[in-house]
């Protein structure tokens, strides 16, 4: 059973802000989705472990420095920037 406190806690972990008036509705809808997900607990335990898809494996390569994108280009999409850095103000 999922509680309002659980939803508040998950929202905090998710960095989402849930207004007080939406908390009850969201708790109900989370409960429905989790009930649906609970169906997997009726599945037989087969001892299969998931290892990879289509035999794909890790790719290793030399730690070489290669050119990347210019800082000025990257910063063009930032809501705020200063002196070649992303700007984060504490208050607005």
């Amino acid at each position, binding site marked *: 059973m999922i509680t309002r406190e659980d939803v508040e806690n998950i929202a905090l972990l998710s960095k*989402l*802000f849930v207004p007080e008036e939406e908390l009850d509705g969201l708790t109900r*809808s989370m409960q429905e989705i989790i009930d649906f997900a609970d169906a997997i607990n009726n599945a037989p335990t087969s001892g299969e472990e998931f290892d990879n*898809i289509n035999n794909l494996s890790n790719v290793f390569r030399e730690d070489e420095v290669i050119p990347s994108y210019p800082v000025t280009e990257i910063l063009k999409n930032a809501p705020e920037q200063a002196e070649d850095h992303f700007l984060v103000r504490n*208050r607005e």
Partner: protein
Amino acid sequence: MGSIADIHEKLVTKQVSCTELTKSYLEEIEKANTALNAYVCVTGEEALDTAAAVDKKIAAGEEIGMLEGVPMALKDNMSTKGIETTCCSKILTGYKPIFDAAVWEKLKAQNAVLLGKTNMDEFAMGSSCETSYFGGAMNPFDVNHVAGGSSGGAASAVGGNIAAYGLGSDTGGSIRQPAAFCGVVGLKPTYGAVSRYGLIAYGSSLDQIGPITKSVEDASIVYDAIAGADRRDSTSVGAKNGPTYPQLNNDIAGLKIGIAREYLDGVRDDVKEAVLAAAKVYESLGAQIVYFDLPILKFALPVYYIIACAEASSNLGRYDGIRYGYKTAHYNGTHDMICRTRSEGFGGEVQRRILLGTYVLSAGYYDAYYKKATDLRGTIIKAFNNAFENCDVILAPTVPMTAFEKGHATSDPVETYLTDICTVPVNIAGLPGVSVPCGFNAKGMPIGMQLIGKSFDESTILNAAYRYQLAAPENFKDTKWGVKL
């Protein structure tokens, strides 16, 4: 019907110039897009620039490639340098990537004419396209019905003849389901066949880019053009078995087509009848139909939602209002700024999935949900491998129903998830699947069937789909919209 080969032929024989062709697509987009809402951004200027370059080559007597000068569209989760890419989310409004997605790099190098970016469910999370920040894309067969999702805009544009083809992405059915709803062909390639570099991530172990087209040949041509290994996507290995186009029109006598009974459970009668009629067509072509059971399928849907949401909760952690996109106006402290930015920037369905994903990954629930789901993923993969020991291809419905009326999908999230029941197993197992039109219901809405293949065996499913298309051309219908060629 405006296939890629037709367009190529018309350009090469100078029956139409690329500029005239591009203009006629742009004019038809102008007329149809108010009703279809297929495009969220139209790139007319870029399209005409490319068209002029292609015309110059043709005038100079140079040879042009099959996709050169063919007007097409990209789903709005594929990065396009300097062109707004939003994932149809408020949180990415104004974001202009500084690089191109690998698939677009490949097509751009062949002078593909980009008409614009197509509508989708926000961050590809949805089955009706209605979670889009820009409102849903509509069905070209009847605009009171949805185009499906999440690549609804691309399917609507292709079905509405306002793009010769489109690229979509498929995490749990997002290429195949809208293709089925809009009466077009949609191929979800094998996981690893196509580079995902520059595709904005949803569920990274499930996502794959593929074509949405008018015909099976077109799907084959576009797939061959975008497949390939790419060092910037470590999961990409390319089309291991070579190009598919030369394999079309192979004889299918003796091909073993499997039907898993579980795929037909809960499927609406009109859809079931159309799929079984297609099986009869295959028998008349000399294929052999074998029935089998795949009981593990009934767990595929919760397994999918647990894995997809877990991966999404991690992938969407990057939207913080600092580096790109939307940022809240008023806040007190950095944590508050990030939380407000995300809550104001993400829509309801995206927030639900982030919350579910965070829940199944959190301490105390990880083993019961995420670990259990990934173990079951192993079981599902093994079950498909076993099934393919007795058949070459699996035939199934793409969706248990036809396109629903607008507004229907948004009322109940769990009921909406059920529409994905036939498409998600392919993503869980990393297999290729193609949706092909196989009939119409009493209201004239298209029905799609799905051919599922072994890993990297796109050739076999596309060939089987092509043979069906030749035998049942009446199921590949044009709509009243768009460019008439």
